[in-house]
């Protein structure tokens, strides 16, 4: 393993959302889906604006999006996660549909996907740190810590590599040199 544990730790302000955040509309305007826009640097300016029009200006790299059940529900379109990536954000949610989890990994966004009750432990603006490899969430504002099941190491490696495209290129290169 060449990466260091620090690669999987993020600390910043948290932004808390409720249950049933919708992939299309809430997380990204639908016209970017229709246009098949996939550039994080374009999509970042429209991240989560269905729920908070100021969000792209307020959020800073390292910040954490914390949400309730069925995050990114509805039709799973990867643009929502490329937008999060563009802003340099990571995610902790109470649950996420399988197809959106796959998009999150493909887009290279760190996530804790099974944080039961997490939205009750944080408020927007609090100073939160997450170790995505161990599953430990520390709320520095409150001086509290919670443990959740982390994503499998193999999937964390795909995210750390930058998502699906980079992972696919690595596998192709490995086959060519084999």
């Amino acid at each position, binding site marked *: 393993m060449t990466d260091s544990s620090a690669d999987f730790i993020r600390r910043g302000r948290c932004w808390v959302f409720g249950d049933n955040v919708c992939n299309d509309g809430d997380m990204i305007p639908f016209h970017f889906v229709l246009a098949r826009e996939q550039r994080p640097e374009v999509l970042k300016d429209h991240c989560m604006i269905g729920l908070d029009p100021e969000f792209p200006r307020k959020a800073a790299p390292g910040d954490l999006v914390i949400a309730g059940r069925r995050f990114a529900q509805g039709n799973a379109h990867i643009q929502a996660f490329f937008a999060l990536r563009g802003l340099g954000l990571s995610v902790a949610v109470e649950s996420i549909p399988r197809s959106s989890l*796959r998009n999150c990994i493909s887009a290279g966004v760190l996530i804790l996907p099974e944080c039961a009750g997490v939205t009750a432990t944080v408020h927007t603006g609090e100073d939160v740190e997450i170790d995505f490899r161990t599953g430990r969430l520390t709320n520095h504002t409150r001086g509290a810590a919670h443990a959740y099941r982390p994503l499998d190491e193999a999937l964390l490696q795909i995210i750390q590599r930058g998502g699906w495209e980079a992972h*696919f290129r690595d596998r*192709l290169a490995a086959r060519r040199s084999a």
Partner: protein
Amino acid sequence: MSLQTLTQKILSAKVGRDVREGEIIFPEPDLIVVHDWYSANAGRTLRQFGVERLYAPDKVMFVTDHEPIAVSAESAAKQAEIRDIARQFAIGHHFDVGRGGHGHLFPVEAGFVTPGMFVEAYDTHVPNYGAVGALGFPMLNEIVEVMALGSVWIRVPATIRIRLRGRLTPGVLIRDFAQKLIADLDADLVNYTVVEFSGPAMEHISVDERFTLCNTPIEIGAKSAIAEPDDVVREYLSERVQCDIDLPRSDADAPFVHAAEYDLTTIEPYVAVPPIPDRVVPISAVAGRPVDHAFVGSCASGSLNDLREAARYLKGRRIDPRVRLFITPGTQAILRAAIAQGLMDIFSCAGAIITAPGCGPCAGGRIGALGRGEVSINTGTRNDPGRLGARDSEIYLASPATVAVSAITGRITDPREFARGTS
């Protein structure tokens, strides 16, 4: 060896060791299916990543079901591009326009799919293959990784076991149960699970009906669905495949994450109301609603049995003059059988229009679309706003029997009112 679900057994066989739920593995599918609305993108992506040869081109199948009749010059050009891609990458099975039919149906009827197989496909409804005890996993853009390298990561899913007993009553079809089931199950519980069907009722449930059973759970987030293969499957496949047929099953005490049992005798006709497939109500709640448009077909309900059920009500009757009714046989073979059995005669005499085999209107309403404010009752897979055309049109999903009688009366109608007089 620890106790395993059918899904774990299939995946264990693929990776050569016992797998645990939640584990990340790279199983190599026995078959990879890509449909005509993605084949060209797949080819472009492969070229973009510099892939010249596929891992196992003989295992790759291109199907032409979403738009078998090109509706524009662009579509015709895309079909030509797909033919080039199929040649360049030596795709083992290219079922072009008019060959095969619906990719979630004909590979089963043609004997490509057998119990215990593992299949990955670009399209949501490949769990249909669970009808014969095969495990089908949908993939999106990552299907090109499977084409190029033979596998992609998957997480071994948990299994929900649904046991069925009893018999459906006249006028009630397996589609009614399938809709009721996804309304009952908690989406958070179903998320990323395989829904497995078994129980004493299965001996009366045909492979055609099992397509419907396995088709719907994905709408609420299941990874796949599978019917425990049994003698019904063995008999169905006996005339279709040459090899010995194994019937793998879950161990009795395998670790199911949830189990439920249904008595089919208690099922009544159900209708999914806009805007999601699991918003399901008993038909009495919507009976009488006028409809403009009706459709029997799709991977959920495009089998010969589905056409037979619709024809049972349409025989000797005419549809309401305000309604247009589309009939889409799932496959070329179903079309031939329906002609031989006189069903197409019944449909055309009733005033229905028959479309090319494949997805029919369900593929985004490219044919047989809905206009503004129109109401459809159909057997398609989804009822999202705009799925079949105008965003403010409304789609009700129901069984072929309910669709047929509603087309006759011009209003959503309970088929049990007609069932007594049919045979």
